[in-house]
């Protein structure tokens, strides 16, 4: 890959639960094409997928950006949803503010953010109530 970096941007449609995950599927294909190991590909795509699902559940969609750099893969998730009131609480496994209808779809168990942290090497959350959330994750390669 040399010193070049690759950049991709995906819009996540907040109205459509069915299409959630499309950015992660595309990312998985891009990373395979570039030739990353299955472990790296899996970690990046799971972290991004959880982020996408969160955007659809909580924030009416948003934007996912993927940066493929020489030594790391960076994912930036940006939304203009309600923001996260208490980030420490949101990071606890099992804590969720998702409504019951989301649980009946198989999500909202309070595992999304902890999973994103578990599968990445770094994760930073910037959030303002009423304005939105920006999450930056990196996976070292």
């Amino acid at each position, binding site marked *: 890959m040399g010193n070049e970096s690759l950049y991709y941007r995906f819009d996540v449609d907040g109205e459509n*639960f069915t299409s959630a995950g499309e950015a992660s599927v595309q990312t998985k294909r891009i990373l395979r094409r570039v030739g990353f190991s299955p472990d790296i590909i899996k970690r990046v795509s799971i972290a991004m997928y959880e982020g996408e699902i969160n955007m659809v559940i909580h924030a009416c969609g948003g934007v996912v950006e993927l940066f493929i750099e020489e030594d790391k893969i960076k994912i930036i998730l940006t939304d203009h949803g309600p923001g996260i009131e208490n980030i420490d609480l949101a990071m606890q496994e099992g804590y969720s503010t998702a409504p019951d209808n989301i649980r009946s779809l*198989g999500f909202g168990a*309070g*595992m999304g953010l902890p999973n994103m942290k578990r599968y990445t090497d770094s994760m930073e959350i910037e959030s303002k109530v009423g304005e939105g959330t920006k999450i930056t994750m990196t996976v070292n390669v």
Partner: protein
Amino acid sequence: MKMTDIARLLDCDVLCCEDQLGGHVYSACGSDMMSDVLAYVKNQAVLLTGLLNTQVIRTAEMMDMVCVVFVRNKMPSEEILRIAKESGIVVMSTKYRMYEACGILYANGLNRIEGDNRG
């Protein structure tokens, strides 16, 4: 175990990607909660579930799973099958309930994950 064995043991209707039934699988998990699958599953190739929506297939794809079995005679929509075909994931439907379906596969040698006591 081959996926053809799963289809036979659970008396499944195979709904897509039949051409891949000859592939071997070594472990499976059963869950209706995709959050848990994303959190706890490691290297399992087969997902048994009673949940019926497109995110089941997306979750399977993220986890590098190759086969989804819908229990209790649940029949996936065309949309679910379209996504599964795109991803090359075998989809089956069985009349058995989750507990029985998992038990039959386990008793016939399909284990859960190596190296993790959850899931």
